[in-house]
């Protein structure tokens, strides 16, 4: 699965894109965030306040209870500030 990170999430994680195999017990966005947080200090810092994290599953905005098992691409980012 492709995972993407933008803005300060990207800076804290330390990469903008990576491909990972998710464990079988990661079913939804919230579970994925918990699992990523345990990978290292950078992920832990990026996801320390999950309520600040916005998510897109296959390039559509999604909530933290969205399923991830069928997804090809999941992106994590702060609230958007364009315009």
């Amino acid at each position, binding site marked *: 699965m492709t995972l993407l990170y933008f803005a300060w999430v990207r800076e804290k994680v330390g990469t903008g894109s990576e491909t990972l195999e998710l464990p079988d017990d990661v079913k939804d966005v919230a579970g994925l965030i918990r699992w990523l947080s345990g990978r290292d200090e950078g992920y832990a810092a990026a996801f320390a306040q999950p309520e600040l994290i916005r998510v*897109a599953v296959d390039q559509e905005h999604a909530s933290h209870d969205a399923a991830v098992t069928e997804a090809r691409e999941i992106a994590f980012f702060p609230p958007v500030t364009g*315009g």
Partner: protein
Amino acid sequence: MAVRVQEENFDIGAEISALRGDRTDIGAIVSFTGTVRDLGGTDHVAAMTLEHYPGMTERALAALESDARSRWPLDDCLVLHRCGRLEPGENIVLVVTLSAHRQAAFDAAAFLMDDLKTRAPFWKKEETADGTRWVEARASDDAAAARWSDHQAK
């Protein structure tokens, strides 16, 4: 459908001209241009960099445009957003709406901007005297977008 993301600047007049062509059925053209502000003083911003999510950005902008077209009788519209490094005074975003009816053109342009601010995956990082900082989303933008949820298009 006309949505674009580009690093290059845009020419407001040229974009409007391209949309209207030699049409004689339009009546009303509204443009909104957002520019980089520098408030000076302790809030002095030397520049900002716009990061975005290639692929999703275009999808999100196209979805916005499609939504606007379903709500108002638009003859055409454009949503154009820049990315990369921009200095104070530079153009960031352009929305143009063409309609037979001025209120439709105004409302659709305001809607596109409000929705873009809360849905299009762009992030601004400012360069200031104290270093760089990510711009925080504003509750007022959420409120502005929310007012269209129960808005009855006229």
